[in-house]
């Protein structure tokens, strides 16, 4: 019989908020440590990137104003996916020094690892909506709400992946390199630089299975085109999100009891 029962982990409910905040704050501080402008650059990055891309694409794709916005949305969302999954995959390894010192739920470390990328995405979203409003194409509140819900689902997808990958990485130490190749190839699987319509319809189902695809297409649809995808499409996205989150949580639960032994 194996049983370990304690009256609680080191982190009680009262401390949970403080721990989450400290992990996010110190991650943010570490990331921008030593860069010119530090925090200011972190906040300005989405704005400056948006303006640079907008200027370049306005010149290159002058005849197709919709395309430049679709491209910028795709690029930012995919960057969030790449960055957050990479930091999620490495999260337990990176914070191993905390996990061997005290008993606290390591999933907090995994979930908060995406915070930097999420802050950048949130700021980009604000800049994008402000730009749309300034150019007379302000999205309706319902469209903004739908866009926000897609980003929540995106975060859940990233969390599901990170939960599984962070514990598997302890045994497969080149998983980060494999994932880097997958995300580079995945950039061309997701319809970021090309419209989905140029591919045969029978291929669409496979492209939708790649998580960034539906998020990018649905986000463009509500913000640029002004119409929401069908209820069935929403149900399928939710099912995909829950499947990835559930599978990630199961793999995490299976592997996490032995994780400290690999640190």
């Amino acid at each position, binding site marked *: 019989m194996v*049983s370990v029962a304690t009256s609680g982990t080191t982190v009680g409910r009262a401390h949970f908020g403080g721990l989450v905040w400290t992990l996010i704050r110190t991650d943010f501080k570490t990331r921008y440590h030593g860069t010119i402008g530090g925090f200011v650059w972190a906040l300005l990055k989405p704005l400056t990137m948006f303006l640079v891309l907008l200027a370049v694409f306005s010149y290159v794709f002058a005849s197709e104003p919709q395309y430049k916005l679709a491209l910028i949305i795709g690029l930012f969302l995919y960057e969030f996916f790449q960055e957050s999954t990479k930091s999620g995959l490495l999260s337990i390894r990176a914070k191993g020094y905390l996990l*061997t010192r005290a008993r606290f739920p390591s999933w907090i470390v995994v979930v908060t690892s995406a915070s930097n990328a999420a802050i950048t995405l949130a700021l980009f979203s604000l800049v994008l909506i402000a730009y749309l409003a300034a150019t007379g194409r302000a999205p309706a509140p319902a469209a903004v709400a739908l866009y926000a819900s897609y980003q929540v689902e995106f975060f859940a997808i990233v969390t599901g992946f990170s939960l599984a990958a962070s514990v598997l990485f302890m045994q497969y130490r080149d998983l980060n390199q494999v994932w880097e190749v997958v995300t580079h190839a995945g950039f061309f699987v997701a319809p970021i630089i090309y419209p989905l319509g140029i591919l045969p319809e029978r291929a669409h189902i496979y492209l939708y299975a790649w998580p960034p695809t539906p998020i990018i297409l649905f986000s463009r649809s509500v913000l640029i085109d002004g119409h929401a995808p069908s209820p069935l499409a929403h149900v399928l996205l939710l099912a995909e999100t829950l499947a990835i989150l559930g599978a990630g949580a199961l793999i995490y639960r299976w592997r996490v009891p032995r994780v400290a032994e690999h640190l």
Partner: protein
Amino acid sequence: MSSIVDVRGVSKTFTIPTVRRDTVREHALDFFRRRGSERLRVLDSVSFELRRGESLGLMGRNGSGKSTLLKIVSGIYSADAGTVDVHAPVTPILELGVGWNPDLDAIDNIELLGTVMGMTLKELRSATPEILQFAELEKFAHLELRHYSSGMAARLAYAVAFRAVRDVLILDEIFAVGDAGFKERCQARYRDLHRAGHSMLLVSHDPRTIAAFCDRAMLLEGGRIVMSGPASAVADRYLSLLTQDEAAAFRSAAR
């Protein structure tokens, strides 16, 4: 005295592969090749209880399973068999000399480690001057940890851990860090906590530490508890084990 930690029949075995496969590539290339492994039984049906307010010492030679046992009781490792019932929050003070975020200064690292150990941000902010004072690092509060010596980093870690104390303390070689003044402060803090009713599980290789700071002690040998009783008696037995080792080494060298 009622028990606050109850360990019954805990066993732990590590499987050590004869050929390591740590990457996707190695697993894929060697998929059909058989891989042997050695099983190392580190703990074998260990049972003991830590009573409320008691200071219990744990001694044993290197590799006897002490650190694994502490990690299992702390909930960091899982046991293969047996039960561990802990009836109060635990503060483990283990491997504190290693692992900080080197890009953050002492204050941020105090917040990081302190919140992980169960303190609230409010508690930490009011305790930070005291923590820095205990570690004698007030002047270096805004220095990044990458510039700290290993001794400074260890002192900071002990200072945080001693401030974050909850009901049960699990300590590994706590008096082996710092200069005489720092050791004295650690010892004084330990005595204060013991007087205040905290329960302690203390590992040390030093028989004087066990005899001076523990009410009772256990001797771990080959993953089993071979002796349990008054701290000074266990410390003496540990010393005699070491003497036997030295005598055997001397005889073998003389042959």
